[in-house]
């Protein structure tokens, strides 16, 4: 069907939604139009139907958990958060609660919201591509995957006292939560942190000057800062696992 015909229908003159913001090279006049009814509506209907069936089968086959009644006097061990928050709970092993429970979630939300204001380019919009946006997609997928890996560890591998229990190990065998940990003294931690962020901000500009030029000062700084913060999470995890480091920076007010 062709679009001139459609436009002749009453109301349809309004049909293609109001144009995109000036300057965005969005609409090409020649793209073939389809009528929403039924071309799109039937797909939506089918999708909803399939998901309804899936959900119904799931609900008939598996019961939602219901443990004994809440008892403030009897601690659950382990007390696991719902799975979508277990990743944050897993971070409690490596970070103080104000970082794992407040700082990191806040940074994730702010960082996600900042994405479109940092990456304002127009290449490869509206289709799937890896090659043309290797950096952006790589970092995003890393963060996304990290979130899921932490969830899997917390949900399936953690047992009493939040110790690692492999699926074939019994939770009845106690594992000690005691661990000998040490922290960087401040005269080591402070320069290390400064170097991480300092070099992190300087090096990419040095190696890829076009990146700085394309993004400009504040976009470049925010992009690099959020990326460095993202990778600082697995770095801290590895410092803890390999070198038994508890804090990289100890101050009288807070520890990191």
């Amino acid at each position: 069907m062709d679009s001139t015909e459609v436009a002749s229908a009453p109301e349809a003159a309004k049909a293609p939604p109001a144009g995109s913001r000036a300057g965005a090279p969005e609409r090409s006049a020649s793209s073939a139009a389809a009528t929403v009814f039924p071309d799109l509506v039937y797909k939506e209907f089918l999708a909803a139907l399939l998901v309804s069936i899936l959900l119904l089968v799931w609900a008939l086959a598996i019961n939602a958990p219901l443990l004994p009644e809440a008892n403030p006097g009897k601690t659950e061990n382990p007390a696991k958060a719902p799975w979508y928050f277990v990743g944050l709970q897993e971070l409690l092993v490596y970070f103080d609660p104000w970082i794992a429970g407040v700082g990191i979630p806040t940074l994730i939300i702010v960082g996600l919201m900042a994405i479109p204001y940092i990456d304002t380019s127009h290449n490869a919009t509206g289709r799937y591509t890896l090659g043309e946006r290797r950096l952006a997609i790589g970092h995003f997928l890393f963060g996304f995957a990290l979130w899921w890996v932490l969830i899997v560890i917390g949900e399936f591998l953690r047992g009493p006292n939040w110790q690692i229990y492999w699926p074939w190990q019994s939770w009845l065998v106690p594992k000690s939560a005691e661990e000998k940990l040490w922290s960087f003294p401040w005269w080591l931690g402070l320069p290390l942190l400064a170097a991480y962020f300092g070099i992190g901000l300087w090096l990419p500009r040095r190696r890829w000057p076009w990146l700085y030029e394309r993004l400009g000062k504040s976009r470049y700084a925010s992009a690099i800062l959020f990326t460095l913060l993202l990778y600082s999470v697995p770095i801290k995890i590895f410092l803890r696992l390999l070198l038994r480091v508890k804090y990289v920076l100890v101050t009288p007010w807070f520890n990191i």
Partner: protein
Amino acid sequence: MMSQNQRLRQAITTSQLYRSIFRHDYVDSLRNRALEVTSNIFLHLHPVTIPRHALSVRFTFCLGGLTFFLFLVETITGLLLMFYYRPVPDYAYIDMKTLEYAAQFGVVLRNLHRWGAHLMVVTVMLHMLRVFLTGSYRPPREFNWVVGVSLLVMTLLLSFTGYLLPWDQLAFWAVTVGTNMAAATPFIGAEGPFHEVLGAQPLNDVRFLLLGDMKVGSNALLRFYVLHCVGLPLFAIVAMMVHFWRVRKDGGISRPL
């Protein structure tokens, strides 16, 4: 000669009642395809025509639409669950048991609501992933991405507040762990760094605000219930209205240049 069927059909479709509800006939014409959308408040969320590209299931995987659909499923099953549930520690758990053992299909109802919530968390995350991978957050869609992130947060908070309501050991301790983190907030949490600057104590910090108490108890149950059934859904609905509106105002879903 009209057959019996045709006559019946005509009698119905020309009746005042029918015509007051359906404002046009159903013959497949472009005019009717357009009217089908514009004269129906629900379908009116859509434009009348869209570029062919936007039909591709392998572009959106219907994930945004399915998230919305699951929100509707949660609204309906949640409404039914409210008939059986009282947000008071003395009753909440018994009500869950009653639902399970005494109400027809009570378990199925509860399962639908619970698994639907889990599925919604999954679809909203995948929707975000697809929007990212297709670069659909770029101008002019920046703000709709921001609205989307707030919808992600609200979806998670809806799930989390709902988690406490069964009032079983799982609920109680998961929420205890979760809300303890609030006490660690810098400045405004009683155990957070710099808590002494503003004088945050267990009796006046953010955790107290969340729980209405220093630990999870009847006040917390009531607060979570109200947030879960009224407060957060209201915010989510408003955010979704903005979200869908912006999808259209930003020129429909994104597509290759």
